[in-house]
């Protein structure tokens, strides 16, 4: 079980798992234990902001990604949300359980709701550009405050 940083904005509470890193768009990246392989998923903030997931369309195994490429699209009750990979590489596994249970992205974004595993092309370089949990929390909080303050 990961540990979490937590922040409240307005009536919303957002958790950030401390055992992984984050892209600025809220996609988390976690080393899998296999050399250069990383697991990708969405942060609690992204899942809350996107709404209840209806479908997850993940690009197929074998797809090559550059950093910044969309690797999946999440169709929610409110919007279609493109998920952008913060690492370059090749998709080697997708979470097939999401076909029948896309709600896992909402219910357990840091666990059962993982989306894909990527064999990173240059993990040593990409990891330097990622945010640590505290930095992501701060960036995400600023985003959430700006959105809530827009009313």
């Amino acid at each position, binding site marked *: 079980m990961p540990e979490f940083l937590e922040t409240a904005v307005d009536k919303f509470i957002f958790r950030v798992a401390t055992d992984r890193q984050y892209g600025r768009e809220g996609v988390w990246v976690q080393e899998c234990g296999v050399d250069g392989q990383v697991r990708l998923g969405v942060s609690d903030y992204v899942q809350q902001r996107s*709404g*209840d997931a*209806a*479908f997850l369309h993940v690009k197929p195994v074998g797809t090559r990604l550059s950093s910044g490429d969309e690797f999946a699209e999440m*169709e*929610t*009750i*409110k919007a279609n949300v493109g998920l952008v990979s913060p690492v370059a590489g090749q998709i080697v596994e997708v979470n097939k359980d999401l076909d*029948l249970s896309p*709600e896992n992205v909402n219910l357990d974004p840091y666990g059962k709701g993982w989306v894909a595993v990527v064999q990173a092309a240059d993990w040593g370089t990409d990891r330097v550009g990622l945010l640590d949990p505290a930095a992501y929390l701060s960036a995400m909080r600023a985003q959430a405050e700006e959105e809530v303050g*827009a*009313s």
Partner: protein
Amino acid sequence: MSRTATYHTTVRWKGDHRGHLEMGNGPEYEFSAPPDAHGSAGVFTPEDAYVAAANTCVMMMFLWATERFKLRLLSYECRTEGTKLVELDRTELFTRLHFRPKIRVAGGGEPSPVIEARVRRALQSAQKYSLVANSVKSEIVVEPEIVVEEC
């Protein structure tokens, strides 16, 4: 993006225990209280309006949800019952809204349990994202009857 919207209605006293209601979206109704509350039979009442507001809102949200969840809706009918509680101090409140939707959807190529699970998630989302259901303090109970028909 504006995060607020306003809606209006206007009421005018017509004498005795009756009034005239103009809805912001156009329709107009004569209204009274229910007969058991010193009103008249056969006209719109605040009690009906409260239950109807929740019932219509959840249905509209469900129609949206069926589109997002890619369900082929064949029919939808929902009797909703509001339970009024008269407190010791004679104040009154709706403690519960009981929805009994009867839903028929087309099966398509997927197994019925998969479709039925998706209908249930669409219903949960409809309740969660319904403006009115989300605004009331009555307990909300949804007891669906779902039929998946092979077409």
